């Protein structure tokens, strides 16, 4: 069924971001960008979500949280790392408690670069992720 790409529900988690990217993620929901046009909803509940959107780097304290959220999401699911911090650790990379990008802990499907990321880039990233989500959906329905 292809309706998964018509109704991608997002869970947004802030790793150790400076909130720059978080504000841009929320900006995508505002009247100016209105991602609900594409059926995208910010659910806030991992069990309802299809897309895990992470901003900020991974530190010692949130490793278990990020893993937990990822494992609570039902298949098929994708992970989008938003911003350079989520990609590599960014400006916080050398900090004593920072592990690096999201890819260190869970498999990432799409990296969206930028500091802070523009809402257009986030929407582009999600749209790119939808293609991957559909492929995963096909694979998953074959397995099931």
């Amino acid at each position, binding site marked *: 069924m292809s309706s998964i790409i018509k109704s991608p529900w997002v869970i947004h988690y802030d790793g150790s971001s400076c909130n720059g990217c978080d504000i841009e993620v929320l900006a995508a929901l505002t009247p100016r960008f209105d991602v609900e046009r594409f059926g995208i909803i910010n659910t806030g*509940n991992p069990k309802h979500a299809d897309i895990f959107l992470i901003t900020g780097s991974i530190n010692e304290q949130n490793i278990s949280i990020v893993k937990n959220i990822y494992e609570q999401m039902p*298949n098929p699911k994708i992970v989008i790392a938003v911003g350079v911090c989520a990609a590599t650790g960014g400006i916080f990379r050398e900090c004593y408690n920072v592990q690096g990008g999201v890819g260190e802990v869970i498999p990432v499907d799409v990296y969206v670069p930028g500091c802070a990321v523009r809402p257009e880039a986030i929407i582009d990233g999600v749209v790119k992720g939808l293609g991957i989500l559909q492929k995963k959906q096909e694979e998953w329905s074959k397995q099931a």
Partner: protein
Amino acid sequence: MSTTAITSGLLYLVLAPLIGGLIAGMDRILSARMQMRVGPPIWQPFYDVGKLFSKEQLVVNHMQTTLISGLLFFMVITGLLFFTGYDLLLVIFTFTLASIFLILAAYRAGSPYSFIGAERELLQIMAYEPMVLLVPIGIYLVTKTFSISEILKFETPLIFYLPGVFIGFLHVLTIKFRKSPFDLSSTHHAHQELVKGLTTEFSGPSLALIEIAHWYENVLLLGMIYLFFAPIPWVGVLLALGLYFLEIVIDNSFARMKWEFLLKSSWWVALIFGGGNIILLMLFKH
């Protein structure tokens, strides 16, 4: 059972999810327009449900899925009883039974969010049930029957005798439609407070079943509004849809209230409008 009753029952079975889904789609577009957004396509609720059916089902407790099927089953039965013209009292009781199944399902999961959601849903039932029970009592006092097929034959629109009961019913409709300011247990919107309340622990197909049950429920509730205007069908249909629009306006213009307000306001409205209307009926009719 007459053939018209069977036809309307079958029509309900097939058309209610379609109409309910379209109303939900319209609801999302109208809400978006009120917030200066474009909003999703009208078929969005069907895409959502289709997607949920194709997703993995994470089961916290196996009773969950059974209880959710119970919710859908009894919601459909309630609607069938209503649209085939059975007893209005029976409709009200099976309706409550269906809601109880959802609460039990939410209690099955250990999650605190789902637990508090279930407790708030119980509070909501406590708030709306007195008023919902006053509706058949008021209708009985006017028409001397509980049978819906007989009530429909009554010549004058019931609203002339039961304006207070109708206002009270409108008040509790906001709770039943899960609209702000009374969407305490779970909401359709992104502004969550208990993650997703009642439905937090449901994923994939079971969440889709909850959504479909909600569509059946909404059509049934609109049918109950129609009952007050039954002798003039087009007024009934238009007013049912118009009042749903009013609910959307209320939803978008109010913040969520605390449960104390919910309980107090619902009971006061039930007592003053519903109870007052019924006392006046008892005094002056016949």
